[in-house]
């Protein structure tokens, strides 16, 4: 033991250094964010509550049932069922995301060729029952409406729709052409351009009808 080391030990030099540090820290500003009162600033690219982009043209989801999101999902929390209407035209019969199983990797958002899916920046959606966090097709659209209502701009763009480091020329055409989604017309959806509403309304009307049929069928099967 050198003399210097001995003196350091006797005079508690290292302990006093540590105590000086903790004292300095005591006077510094705490980093705590008192959550319900203060909220953390959310940066672009935050991956939160799932939503379907409501297409401003049709007023419905843009999903084309390509199954890419279902296949890429690492936790396999997305399930999709393709249905056929009376004209043998495919339509999205069922689309469910089990948000409790989701790991929020954002692969589904990146892979979607039509930018139909998005992980919004909303993160406050805890619930008392599992059912409330089990997002079906309509819930996903509602999530979008709820989220968009909190935004201040006119358009919405998610950076994972065109992920960094991927050559844009290798992306599908629909993805290359995808620009920021207008969000304001949705608020005035009931009265857009005169020609469109009948189609949109018809589609909307058809949708619940299909849903209702499904339900009755399911009930019958159950019985």
């Amino acid at each position: 033991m050198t003399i210097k080391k001995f003196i350091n030990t006797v005079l508690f030099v290292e302990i006093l250094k540590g105590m000086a540090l903790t004292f300095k820290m005591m006077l510094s500003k705490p980093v705590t964010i008192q959550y319900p009162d203060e909220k953390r600033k959310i940066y672009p690219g935050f991956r939160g509550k799932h939503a379907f982009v409501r297409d401003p043209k049709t007023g419905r989801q843009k999903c084309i049932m390509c199954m890419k999101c279902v296949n890429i999902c690492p936790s396999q929390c997305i399930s999709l069922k393709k249905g056929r209407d009376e004209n043998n035209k495919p339509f999205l019969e069922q689309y469910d995301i089990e948000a409790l199983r989701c790991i929020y990797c954002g692969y589904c958002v990146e892979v979607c060729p039509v930018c139909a899916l998005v992980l919004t920046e909303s993160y406050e959606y805890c619930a008392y029952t599992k059912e409330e966090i089990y997002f079906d097709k309509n819930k996903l659209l509602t999530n979008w409406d709820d989220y968009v209502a909190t935004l201040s701009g006119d358009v919405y763009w998610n950076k994972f729709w065109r992920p960094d480091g991927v050559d844009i020329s290798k992306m599908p055409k629909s993805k290359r052409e995808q620009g920021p989604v207008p969000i304001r017309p949705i608020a005035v959806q009931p009265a857009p351009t005169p020609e469109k509403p009948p189609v949109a309304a018809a589609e909307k009307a058809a949708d619940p009808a299909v849903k209702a049929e499904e339900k009755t069928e399911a009930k019958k099967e159950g019985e």
Partner: protein
Amino acid sequence: MDTSSFYGIMDAGTADFLLRMVLMLIKIAVVIVVAMLHVAYSTWFERKIIGHMQIRLGPMRVGPHGLLQPFADFIKLFFKEDIIPSAGDRLVFQAAPMIALFATVSALAVIPFFDDFVIANVNVGLLYLFAMSSLSAYGIILAGWSSNSKYAFLGGLRSSAQVISYEIALALSLVGVMMLSGSLNLVEIVEAQQKHWYGMFAVIQFPAYILFLICAFAETNRTPFDLPEAESELVAGYFVEYSGMRFALFFLGEYIAMIIMSCIAVTCFLGGWTLPPIVIQALPFLALVPGIVWFLLKVYCHLFLYYWIRATVPRFRYDHLMSLGWKILIPISLANIVITSIAKYAF
């Protein structure tokens, strides 16, 4: 005062005795209530200090800045289920926390809080304090043994070994003070310090003061000597099987022991409720401030030191703890006694 007229049939002596008894009981009640409030708020103070040292906020949600947190904790503990291990020794298990608490609380009796305010002004005050702090080790050992759990048992064993080894150095570090003041009475020790211009034995007994502080940390099982309740090894140590109110009794005992150790340090080394005469001479208006203010301020500084150390220093290894106690602290305190006695004889 003619008290006999108040009591009619009693003679003056009995009446006087009764009156003194009532006054004494009131005094005791005041001290206990104030000590309990101090325990409550020292937990709050600790959580705040350690929180801020770790750049956190500490309790914030119960009352403004978490000021009502101790009461919330107490209510929670009070209504928790009282679990007694079926394989444990029921009677000893129930008695252990009471022994631990009563032994520590009764040490409050001899501490002079300010001029003429001491419950029992006994001539063996310091010895009584040592005896009581040793007794509280019984509570710990019995708790560890009666729980019939390996963690509690190991915690109890470690605690007893630690308390016994550090008690020697603790007592020896105070021998210098006893020699300088020529008394074991705590009031006389404070008065003896007033005879010097510096007014504190910590000035001439500085090594003993540091020794005492180190031993006090070990006596009260605080970091860095908190091996009896080493969370990472022993879950919670000797009170791992305790819950609810019985756990609260241990908790109270531990914090009161901390406060009492601070009180002893203040009384024996820092001049108790007095300020150094040189300070009073320089700033005479300070003499108007009641002594309890200085006493409490000094105690709070010591409590702050406990928390400060806890936030800074990691836990000792067990063999390091033992070798520090036996091979370093005890020889240094013995050397201190020799040097002090030579100095006292010479001057």
